[in-house]
């Protein structure tokens, strides 16, 4: 299962045509305690890098962008009452939503795990 990252620190895991989306551990750490996740509407259709969802921490309110184009088919409603799951497990249990995605060519605009690790080093 391949995981890709954006420069805005979202991740996407592709399984067939389904794309699971979240924010990276680095992003969760930088945001600090996460207090609210604005989940996208079911059925919402987004283009790659459009605003997909929102997230708030004790420090700031930020947008979450769609790593790939698609239609929202599932949201992680556990985050409604327990947004801290994103701090505890940003790249697994703290996923935000799932998209039905089609265009694998879009992955070319993203980074794989190794490239993202390099990218983070450059931000230090």
């Amino acid at each position, binding site marked *: 299962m391949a995981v890709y990252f954006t420069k805005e620190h979202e991740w996407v895991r592709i399984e067939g045509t389904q794309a699971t989306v979240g924010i990276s551990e680095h992003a969760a750490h930088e945001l*600090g*305690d996460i*207090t609210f996740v604005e989940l996208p509407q079911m059925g919402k259709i987004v283009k790659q890098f459009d*605003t997909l969802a929102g997230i*708030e921490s*004790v*420090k700031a*309110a930020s947008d979450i962008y769609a790593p790939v184009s698609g239609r929202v088919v599932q949201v992680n409603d556990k985050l409604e009452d327990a*947004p801290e799951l994103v701090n505890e497990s940003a790249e697994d249990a703290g996923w935000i939503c799932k998209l039905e995605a089609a265009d694998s060519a879009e992955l070319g605009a993203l980074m794989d795990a190794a490239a993202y690790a390099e990218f983070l080093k450059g931000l230090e």
Partner: protein
Amino acid sequence: MEDLKATPLRAHHEGLKALMAPFGGWLMPIQYAGIIAEHKWCREQAALFDICHMGEFLFKGDIEAQGLENVFTFSVKGIPVGRSRYGFLLNDRGGVIDDLIVFRLAEDEVMIVVNAATIDNDFSVIRSRLRQDAQLTDVSAQTAKLDLQGPLSREVLVELFGSEIGAIPFFKFIKTRILGVDAIVSRTGYTGELGYEIFLPASKVTELWELLLKDGRVAPAGLGSRDLLRLEVGYSLYGSDLDEATTPLAAGLAAFVNLDKEFVGKDALLKERQAGAEKVKIAFRVNSRRAPRHHYQIFHEGAQVGSVTSGAFSPMLSCGIGMGFVKPEATALGSKLVIKHDKVEMEAVVVELPFYTGGSLRA
């Protein structure tokens, strides 16, 4: 980038991997373990804050003859020795130059504790209102301040420094000896919990910090959690909720203004009391976990009526809370508000302060 000042504990904070950031001209610890964890620790145990950045002035002499009695919005000579009082230093328009606490150390001696960012200006304003030969000294650099706040703070201090501390009532203090030096232990704070502010010579503060942190009931807490703690109990933050354009009456703080005495700014306050303030402070509760933030706009019945001055997600209430200044028509308890910023929008309702009433403050 301006030169940031640092407290004697900077290396200790960095050793604890604190996130450091500028605050009022100082490089201060914002968080260690995390803002919400530190907030919870303060509400349940005892949290230790480095507050060395705040300013302290010493006045010595006859309070009335030297002019100190008319400097603040409250009577200084009316404070009994061993007690402290909160109030304001105003400009002649009634605006708040600073909010501060005055400690009556002796019949002819007081300590004035002021905000960090306003130390120099406060000192020159107070100085200018005193007789020329009055003795006022800025002792901020040589005076350290640690706050130990939380329901377990009393038992920790009593075990370390003796039972005298355990008997201090709210807004009283004692002069005592700690680690072999003169110190002031005051039952005051900024969290809504039982707690103490400890003033001692800066040369001893690292020793006290290390000693307190050896206790398992004590954990360090940064300015991030301090801001959350004070907002939950409705305390104002100077620079956000109070400034030189805001009067204490508009800010809902008339309880700390004695209009039966003289002070600079009184005439302006009397006029405002007649005419009514253009904008008045309100507290509001958001109907979701969204956090209102400084400068977000407040709407009531479709019209913009004001803006947010402080806001956060409240861990105790599990919703957004905030304070702001609005036109009088939107101030009634229960008034429905909409808070907006860019795409963010949240519904809120005007409520009474404090938001959180479960604290151990007067325990």
